[in-house]
């Protein structure tokens, strides 16, 4: 604020760069905080043969400066993906900034778990991590400018390609829907069967215990010469 000169302009330039940096960091979107040894799991319910791409970036909390450090080398995140049957599809350690990809081979709930296993951080008691996460599923995972460059598509061809991908996604989801509806129907029919058998069994048990009670008491009273 000390009048005209080159210095205030340079300060403003630095400010602009800082704001640019902030925008760039914020551009990754959603973030959340996790503890050092905490594990966070996300569920993606997807049809089969669907590609899922996850991008994440971590920042560590610096206790002395009370800010999140822009990047921390040596910080690792372990990513584990399990398919609906519990089988591990992907289990890998990535750096502080990473990108994981997997394709589902069975339709259903896939569980993506993230946890940091950096033992170095044990020095900072109560430390926490800021994790920026972005998970794209199916056709959202496609990078259209890249596809256009690779296959040399015109604008119209690229748009048509995008529409085709979307329709394919819708089709896969509908197939999955049919499979799930069948499972739901099986569960409901199983419940129906169980209720039916239970009511029959209950009635039978009730009648049998009633008969047993009466016979037992009758013989008891006859023994006591009360009847």
């Amino acid at each position, binding site marked *: 604020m000390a009048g005209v000169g080159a210095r205030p302009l340079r300060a403003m330039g630095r400010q602009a760069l800082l704001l640019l940096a902030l925008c760039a960091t914020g551009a990754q979107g959603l973030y959340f905080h996790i503890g050092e040894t905490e594990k966070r799991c996300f569920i993606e319910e997807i049809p089969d043969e669907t590609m899922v791409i996850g991008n994440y970036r971590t920042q560590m909390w610096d206790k002395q400066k009370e800010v999140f450090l822009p990047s921390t080398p040596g910080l690792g995140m372990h990513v584990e993906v399990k398919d609906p049957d519990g089988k591990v599809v992907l289990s890998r350690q990535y750096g502080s900034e990473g990108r994981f990809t997997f394709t589902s081979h069975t339709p259903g709930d896939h569980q993506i778990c993230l946890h940091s296993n950096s033992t170095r951080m044990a020095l900072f008691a109560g430390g926490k991590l800021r994790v920026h996460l972005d998970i794209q599923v199916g056709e959202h995972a496609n990078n259209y400018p890249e596809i256009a460059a690779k296959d040399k598509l015109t604008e119209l061809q690229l748009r048509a390609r995008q529409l085709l991908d979307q329709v394919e996604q819708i089709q896969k989801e509908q197939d999955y829907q049919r499979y*799930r509806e069948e499972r739901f129907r099986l569960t409901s029919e199983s419940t129906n069967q*169980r209720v039916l058998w239970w009511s029959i069994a209950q009635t039978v048990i009730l009648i049998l215990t009633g008969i047993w009670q009466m016979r037992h008491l009758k013989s008891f009273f006859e023994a006591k010469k009360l009847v």
Partner: protein
Amino acid sequence: MPRPGSAQLLALLLLVPGPGGASEITFELPDNAKQCFYEDIAQGTKCTLEFQVITGGHYDVDCRLEDPDGKVLYKEMKKQYDSFTFTASKNGTYKFCFSNEFSTFTHKTVYFDFQVGEDPPLFPSENRVSALTQMESACVSIHEALKSVIDYQTHFRLREAQGRSRAEDLNTRVAYWSVGEALILLVVSIGQVFLLKSFFSDKRTTTTRVGS
């Protein structure tokens, strides 16, 4: 007050709402837990937060959305599903939290979709010089229609997951209850007989004493 230099103007331009995106996440919320998510939003961006509880307990959760100053923009307790649209009034970090603190032992699975601004365009902004041809605008409208189809499909999938979760719950409950009730029935009926027998055993000694 120094005149805003070109650098500052550039900085201000960067904060103008640009292409945003959407984050769709399904996560598990343990009992007595609260999980918060944050996002940096530029002023003037239209955002939508939509959430739905898929499994667990009474399928409800507390949700709270705060602006950078801590002012509560949206707060609902024990909601099963809701959708909230707002326009960011200031730049900064917006925070939204889901809380399951009212539940003692059921953990919940919550889905949320946080849409910030518009979806990024298919092409970099340099190509937006000429107006769209008829084919291109037809493609754009088909794209929008398909996006809404996918959106409906997602909602349907979530509802179906919720219904299926309830049905599977019911199934296990029926199984346990029927076995439990059968056991209780047996125990009570046998117990009744022996209790009755014990009454008559005591009475015999009193009657003999009275007689003598």
